[in-house]
């Protein structure tokens, strides 16, 4: 219960940050020197959270959490919500299927994994959502995709570290899981 409440609060905070604070900040910054960076950058905190659940939960719990993320985030104004669930589920299945290879003990490989998964997620999202062909998608959005994936890769390990720390205190005594980082499991 404590865990569910915590993640409900996390999602609430993420929704405010993602739809109000980040766009406003980036809009303000996109008129300056780094206009290209901020007008093309997206920070999708819900995607980062979905990856975390896919990595750090078993199939059933991961699926339920990913579904919850889809339900919560669909209220945020995603106009391509059908694309959202497709991208989420594809990434979830890939992570779950190859989870045994993702025993991260350090942020660096985690960054690479999130970078690649983020590109995949966005490509599926834009392809399904906007119906753009892969060639034109890459020619138009390549810069944006790489930049966004790079920033996701940078920030995700820190978010995962904090969440793993919290999970280690609340649920790991009930659920045997492989953690993303080496944290004491009680």
């Amino acid at each position, binding site marked *: 219960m404590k865990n569910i409440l915590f993640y409900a609060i996390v999602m609430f905070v993420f929704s405010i940050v*993602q*739809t*109000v604070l980040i*766009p*406003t900040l980036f*809009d303000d910054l*996109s*008129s300056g020197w780094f206009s290209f960076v901020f*007008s*093309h*950058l*997206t920070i*999708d905190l*819900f995607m980062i959270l979905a990856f975390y659940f896919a990595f750090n939960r078993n199939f059933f719990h991961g699926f339920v959490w990913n579904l919850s993320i889809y339900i919560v*985030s669909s209220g*945020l*104004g*995603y*106009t*391509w919500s059908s694309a959202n669930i497709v991208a989420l589920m594809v990434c979830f299945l890939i992570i779950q299927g190859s989870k045994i290879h993702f025993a991260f003990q350090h942020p660096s490989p985690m960054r690479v994994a999130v970078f690649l998964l983020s590109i995949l997620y*966005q490509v599926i*999202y*834009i392809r399904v*959502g*906007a*119906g*753009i062909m892969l060639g034109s998608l890459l020619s*138009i*959005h390549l810069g*944006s995709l790489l930049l*966004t994936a790079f920033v996701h890769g940078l920030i995700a390990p820190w978010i995962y570290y904090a969440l793993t720390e919290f999970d280690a205190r609340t649920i790991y005594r009930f659920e045997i899981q492989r953690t993303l980082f080496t944290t004491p499991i009680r």
Partner: protein
Amino acid sequence: MNTKLKRILVVFFIGYFILQFFSLRIQKKHSPAFHEKVIVSITAPAQWLVRQTYNGIAQTLSNYVFLVRVKKENRVLKDQISSLNQKLVYYRELESENLRLKRIFNLTVDDSFVRVVAQKIASGPTRFEQSIRITKGKKHGLREGLAVVSPDGVVGQIVEVYQSYSDVLLITDPTSRIDVVVQRSRANGMLAGGVKPNQLQFKYLSKESDIYEEDIVIASGLDGIYPKAFPVGKVAAVGVRDKGLFLEATVRPYVEFSNIEEVVVLTPKEEEQ
């Protein structure tokens, strides 16, 4: 000193003072008397010293009191400045809101529409899809497919309606389409978003179309969503005419989407009634 001499001296002094007294009464004195000079020469330095000391003390006291008062006054003034600054920011915000609202109310739209003014509260969660959330919804008479405009031009259309909020798909979204005409030549085409931020692209524009840079593009009204002749943007670039099946052209919208604060939703009048 013997008694005789004492008597002589007393008489001399009395005579001297009587003479002085009478001379004062008879004529105007030209110079101070001797005794006055003596007294002044003794008392004046002391007077000066006392006066200076007094002045010094008084000055110090008054300065101290003044400083205390100034300090207090300074604090009060600082508080006042801070409060006035806050008010200034607030009034500037009001002024800017007032100007924006004035522009909105001066908006000229077809009489068949009712204007519903709404505020933007959030942006879409990613940069790939271009949408905003506004503060008016079903209870204000809004429904999906209504046109959303601003005093600068077309903003987008409503794609999702909640009780008190709505989601607006901006014309810059890759899935957005708007039927337009070039104001000068009446060349017809369809604009789509998604190429670059704040840029629209013509779709299926005939190679023979009479279109040049800086041409004004307006809504054709044929899509049944956007009011006819409402400004959309200006042609930013026109491609090479000999290449491909269609002519490529990009349009820069008049609306600066990152600066939107208020928008107007156009509701058809019959619906409102």
